[in-house]
C-alpha cells in the first residue's frame, strides 16, 4: 500500500538524485540557483536538500559554490564490483598498455550503458574524453559490443529495444546490423569500433568471460584512428581479456 510516508520517501530520493545529476562531468561548482534550474526543482527545496547534503558531506561547499562531496568518493571507492575488478585488472592493464602503447580502459555493463571503472593513459596527440566513472552507450563502444556479444538474448533485446541512438554518423543504429556484428565478435573474440562513439577515436575490446556466468565487464585499448593498428592491438587485447578472465575465475573460486 502506498502510504503517505512511502510517497514522501520516493520524492526525497528523487530530489536528491536530481541534485546529484545536475552536476556535470567537468567538475565545476554550482550555486543553489543554477542547481535548482538544472535539477528542475524550486530553489527553496534545493537549498534545504543541499544544506542536509553538505552537513553529511555528500556535497562540499566552497563559499557560494557546491561540489559533489567527499562522502560520495568514500562510498564510491567501496563499491564491490569495480573495486574487485580494478584490483585484479591493474597488472593486466599495465601490460596491455606497454605492449600496445595505447590508453587502456576497463568497463562494466550497466543497463544500456558501459561505465568505465579504470583507465591507464598514455600521452596522446588526441585528448581522449575517457575517465573513471564515465558512461557511454554500450552499442556505440567496443567495450559494450564485446560484452553484448556474449550476453543473453534478453540482455541484447533490452539494449536494442531501448533505442540504438547515434553518437556519431558511424554509430551502428540498425538492430540487424548490430546483431550480425555481435555474431562476428563471438567468432573473433574481439570487438572493434571506428569513430562510432567519438570522431577520430578507435578502440578494440575483449569481454571478460567466466564459464557459467553472463559477462559483465570488458577490457579495451583506445586511441586515435590513425595510430590504433588493428593487426597489432587485436591479438594483445584478446590475450589480455583471456588472462584477466582466468584471474577473475580463479578469484571467484577462492
Amino acid at each position: 500500500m502506498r502510504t503517505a510516508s512511502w510517497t514522501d520517501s520516493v520524492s526525497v530520493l528523487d530530489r536528491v538524485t536530481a541534485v546529484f545529476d545536475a552536476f556535470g562531468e567537468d567538475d565545476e561548482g554550482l550555486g543553489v540557483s543554477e542547481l535548482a534550474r538544472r535539477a528542475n526543482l524550486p530553489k527553496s527545496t534545493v537549498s534545504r536538500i543541499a544544506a542536509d547534503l553538505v552537513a553529511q558531506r555528500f556535497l562540499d561547499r566552497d563559499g557560494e559554490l557546491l561540489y559533489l562531496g567527499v562522502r560520495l568518493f568514500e562510498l564510491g571507492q567501496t563499491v564491490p564490483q569495480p573495486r574487485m575488478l580494478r584490483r585484479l585488472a591493474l597488472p593486466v592493464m599495465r601490460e596491455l598498455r606497454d605492449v600496445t602503447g595505447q590508453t587502456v580502459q576497463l568497463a562494466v555493463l550497466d543497463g544500456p550503458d558501459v561505465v568505465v571503472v579504470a583507465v591507464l593513459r598514455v600521452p596522446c596527440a588526441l585528448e581522449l574524453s575517457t575517465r573513471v566513472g564515465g558512461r557511454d552507450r554500450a552499442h556505440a563502444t567496443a567495450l559494450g559490443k564485446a560484452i553484448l556479444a556474449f550476453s543473453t538474448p534478453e540482455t541484447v533485446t533490452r539494449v536494442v529495444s531501448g533505442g540504438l541512438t547515434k553518437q556519431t554518423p558511424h554509430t551502428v543504429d540498425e538492430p540487424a546490423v548490430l546483431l550480425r556484428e555481435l555474431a562476428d565478435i563471438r567468432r573473433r573474440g574481439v570487438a572493434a569500433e571506428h569513430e562510432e562513439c567519438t570522431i577520430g577515436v578507435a578502440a578494440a575490446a575483449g569481454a571478460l568471460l567466466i564459464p557459467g556466468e553472463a559477462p559483465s565487464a570488458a577490457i579495451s585499448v583506445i586511441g586515435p584512428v590513425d595510430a590504433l593498428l588493428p593487426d597489432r592491438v587485436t591479438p594483445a587485447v584478446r590475450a589480455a581479456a583471456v588472462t584477466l578472465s582466468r584471474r577473475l575465475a580463479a578469484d571467484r573460486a577462492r
Partner: protein
Amino acid sequence: MMSLAEWNTTPPDTRAPVSVLDRIFAILDAVKESDGSITITDIAARTGLPKSTVSRLVTELTGQRYLARTEEGVALGLRLFELGARASLPRRLVAAAAPVLRNLRDITGERVGLWVQQGTDMVSIAAVAGRLPMLPTRAGMRSPALTTASGKAYLAFCADPAVVDRISAPLVEDDADHFREELAHVRDAVVAMDVEASYPGILAVASPVLSSARVVLGAISIAGPSGAMDPERAAPLVRAAGSTVSRRLAAAA
C-alpha cells in the same frame, strides 16, 4: 515468536534516524560497513529502523542504482561509483598529488597517503604501498582524526573551531590542553607525528595540503615501522611534499 499485541507495543528504537534523508544515509552506511553484501534484516539491526522501512527504501535505492541486489542481499551500486569518481575535492587533490606521492615513496620506501577530513575521521583518497602492508590505508578507508598524524596536521590548520572542538570533544582537562599545545607545535613545525597512538608499531608523519587561499584541504602522510623509520629524516621530506602539492593545486586552479 512475538504476539501481535507485543509487536504493536514495541517501542520505537531511539537510535533510529527520523528523516527520510537520514534513513537513506544510515542504510548506505550500513551497507558500506558490511564491506560487501548485507541482508535487509542485518541493515535493520544495524540502523535500528523497522525492517519494513528498510525494505521499502532499499527497493527505491536499488531502483536508482545506489544499491545493487546480490545473491547475499544488497551491495553498494554503480551510481555511487560514478558520483564518487566525480567528487571534486578528491579528484583535484589526487591529480595534483599523484607524482608527489610516488616521489615521496621512492625516496623513503615507506607507505604514503593522501587524506581529507570527514566527520571525526580522516578518509584516505590515495595511497602508495611501502614496506608496511597496505592495511589500513587503501583509498576510501577511515582513520580517527584525533590521533593520526594526518588528522593532527589537518586540525592544526583548520580555521573552523567547531570542527576542532567536535573532534577533540572526547578529550578532557589535561588531555585537552595537551592536544591544543600539540596543535600549536604542529602549526610551527608544519608537520604532525603519530607515534604508535593509532596503530601499534606504526609511526606516521604528516603535513597539511593548503589551497591558494591558505584553506586546509587535506594532509599528506608517510607511515613506517616505528623502530625503523627515522621521523627526523621523514619530517622535512613530508613538509616539502605538502607544500609542493599545495603549489601544484594553486597552479592548476
